[in-house]
């Protein structure tokens, strides 16, 4: 199984390597653009697993060092929390 199309870059959001490469071809130069268009890095782990792989692709495609690529932001909450528990907290505070 060395078919490039089958390589999954982001397991949480199910994004293939070929999709990332296509977006780079379409003109994306930053991780943020790729994240928004592909939903990679937007899964449960928020990119802890996939973002380095994508940064490597960007670095290769644009011949820039990986340190020059701005990592995307981690959005709160850092761990998932249910709406039910949040609502309870709100009711307690009232």
């Amino acid at each position, binding site marked *: 199984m060395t078919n490039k199309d089958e390589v999954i870059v982001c397991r949480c959001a199910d994004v293939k390597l070929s999709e990332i490469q*296509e977006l780079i071809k*379409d*003109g994306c*130069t*930053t991780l*943020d*653009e790729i994240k*928004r*268009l592909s939903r990679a890095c*937007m*899964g*449960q782990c*928020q990119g802890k697993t996939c973002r380095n792989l994508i940064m490597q692709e960007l670095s290769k495609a644009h011949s820039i060092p990986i340190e020059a690529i701005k990592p995307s932001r981690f*959005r*709160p*909450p850092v761990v*998932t*929390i*249910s*709406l*039910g528990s*949040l*609502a309870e*907290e*709100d*009711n307690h*505070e009232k």
Partner: protein
Amino acid sequence: MKNKASVVIVGGGITGVAIAYELIKRGVKDIIVLEKNTLSSGATGRCGAGVRQQWGTEMNLKLSIGSVKRFETLQEELEYPHDIEFSQTGYFMPAYTEKQVEQFKKNITLQRKFGLHVEWLEPSDCRKVVPIIDLKGLMAATYYDKDGHLNPFHTTQAYAMACRRKGVDIELFTELIGIKTEHDSIKAAITSKGVIECDSIVNAAGGWSQIVGNMAGVSIPTYSERHQILITEPIEPLFRPMVMSFYHNFYTQQEPNGAIIMGIGDPNEPKEINVDSTYLFLQKMASVVTTVLPPLKHARVVRQWAGMYNMSPDKTPIIGKTQIKGFYLACGFSGHGFMISPMTSTLIAQMMTNEPLAIPEIETKLDLGRFERGELFVEPSVV
């Protein structure tokens, strides 16, 4: 970057790129779009991306109906190789007070005059459309199945790619820092990467529109207001339409992949540029949404973020000319600029190329001058 252009558009959100597209489609050459960050980095990339036609005035009905017509065929028109994910899963708008019921009745009469088959739902019908809604306090609802949503990143990217193919220069990471005028006419755009001589500048700067206005000496009464939003993990399909309650001031929708997005307005939000997210929002949002749609208490929040509404004093967009020749405004969208962007961009392009306007009355109803004349626009159906 070129140092000459016919038109410089400030802002790489949906409004800016759509205007560039409508202009080049009409044969205007030498267009440059300036974006200080990346495409969709402003409100566009942070928005709920809902598209509704259930409005309460002729103006907003015309803007939104015309835009939905364009969205239906936009992907083909722009020859976009990916999916802009336009889907018409409807908007469900519940009423909780007598006053809202009265208003919705008036709205629906007007909406039907415009050919929209909006449905009137008694409480007993509501669960057919939103099976998980709690009926407590619910007095009626309206539902229109041709409202919907689309993917804001892909829609912006689709316009941008079509623009680039046709020859528009989109300059990312390039900030407009000043505007040169002479005898009340636009002369040049001063950017962080050099000066561009030009005849026209379009202010499509979203939450920063008032700052760009000042650069040309035009005072725009818009201000920015933070709005927060969250998304949950994907769960089993529970409801299809966007649920939007004016009473609770929130909206929520389950996306095709099962994740649920939701946002709620905060009446105490200060007027300032701010995109921080807060824990308080999570609690407030959760408390309201689980009251109206109780099964959502099991959904788990994965991410939250915030964006800015660019508010105008009457919560209605400012689309039009200014006292400076060649300086155009497309701003103050007050939280619904995404859904009308096809019409906004068409109107600005028509204005700039002296074509007859698709909605002629915008010249006197949505212009900047209305605030000075004291002719505020009144739309009863905004959150």
